[in-house]
């Protein structure tokens, strides 16, 4: 269970004109209780989706209010929260640390599997489960973009987190890989929160949050929430566009 209690995120920005620094609100106030297995977050570029996603694992901490995951406050127990919440980014290159897939998955297992050869064996199992068995020893830079994103997912899921948060995991992928990653996410046992521009994928979620201008402007089943989002993006609604620059 993920709860947001009156969460606000603010940041200092410097005035390019040379004036005084000022505080801008990036998100909030947001109050949410997310218990659904599949939650999708949609919104324009710069609307605050990543900020919302990063709040869940404590990469971003609330300036006011609190975020609690399974009873753990992200501000007090960041490391414990990150062990429960896996996070996948848009660009797998930013996430993969080791030169080969088997070593990168093994790195994730360092904490839980102390023995190196046991760790390698487990890493190979995980890669096989994700259809990457024949890529295990290939240098990461020789993998395709889709294979790299699959590896990033495998490395995060290797530790069996209770929750998986993905920030636009398919934005860089072609249609075939996008479908494959979406299907994989749909098949997981974990609770999955996914930020996406893919409305087909969002339509399969149990609950959709629409973020605009740092606020959650619609929240509910995919049908009405996505209709609201489409209206917002095509200007059919009177609501202002979400694009904000600091």
């Amino acid at each position: 269970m993920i709860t947001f209690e009156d969460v606000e995120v603010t940041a200092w920005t410097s005035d390019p004109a040379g004036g005084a620094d000022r505080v801008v609100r990036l998100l909030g106030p947001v109050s949410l209780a997310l218990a659904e297995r599949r939650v999708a977050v949609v919104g324009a570029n710069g609307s605050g989706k990543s900020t919302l996603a990063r709040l869940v694992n404590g990469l971003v901490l609330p300036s006011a209010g609190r975020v609690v995951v399974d009873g753990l406050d992200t501000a007090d127990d960041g490391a414990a929260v990150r062990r429960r919440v896996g996070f996948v980014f848009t660009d797998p290159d930013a996430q993969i640390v080791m030169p080969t897939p088997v070593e990168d998955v093994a790195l994730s297992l360092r904490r839980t599997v102390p023995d190196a050869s046991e760790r390698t064996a487990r890493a190979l199992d995980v890669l096989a489960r994700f259809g990457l068995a024949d890529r295990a020893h290939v240098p990461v830079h020789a993998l395709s973009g889709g294979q790299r994103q699959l590896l990033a997912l495998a490395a995060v899921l290797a530790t069996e987190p209770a929750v998986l948060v993905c920030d636009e995991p398919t934005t860089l992928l072609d249609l075939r890989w996008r479908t494959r990653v979406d299907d994989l996410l749909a098949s997981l046992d974990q609770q999955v929160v996914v930020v996406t521009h893919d409305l087909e994928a969002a339509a399969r979620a149990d609950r959709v949050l629409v973020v605009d201008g740092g606020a959650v402007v619609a929240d509910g089943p995919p049908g009405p929430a996505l209709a609201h989002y489409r209206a917002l993006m095509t200007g059919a609604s009177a609501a202002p566009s979400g694009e904000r620059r600091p």
Partner: protein
Amino acid sequence: MRAPWAGPLGLHHPGRSVLHRAPVAAKLVALAALSLAVVLVRGLTAAVAGLALVVGATALARVPWHRTTRGLLPVVLTAVALGAYQTWVGDPARGAEAAVDLLTLVLAGSLVTATTRADDLLAAVTRAARPLRHVGLPPETVGLAVSLFLRTVPVLVRTVAETRDAARARGFERDPRALVVPAAVRMVGHARSTGDALAARGLGDD
């Protein structure tokens, strides 16, 4: 499409040679000793001997030559340029020595990474970095930094190649700013997201 060039370092080539089975610490100490010798001992004869030693070791490790040479091409070009410059300023012996020394160092470094699994390298560096704990540097972090460095080389190479293509597509064939500025911006962005991703994976939390 250009085949990915991974840089001279960071490519592990699985095998069962003496060098593959040698303890990582021994290889790192040998690399350090060789580097010191190469830098300290003057003279072309010593330089060539050093190179011969490393070439012999590479043959012993059975790392395929085509991989080694492809990774080394830019280094060879740099070495030739360095040698040519020294010759031009009137010291051909010095030039040849500098070129050979550079080749020796890079070949030795790539030999260590080719014969060592990154996981083992990480463990060895972490162990070696233990004394740094006293100055407030967690050994795990030092080991991770080395792995990250190796991973970053191909990313950097690709970024520069893409940025160069983009600059050429816009007609900036010769302007170095059109290459350096966007590549630097992207690498800073890359470094920031890597930091976030490490935190998200819980690496460096302990």
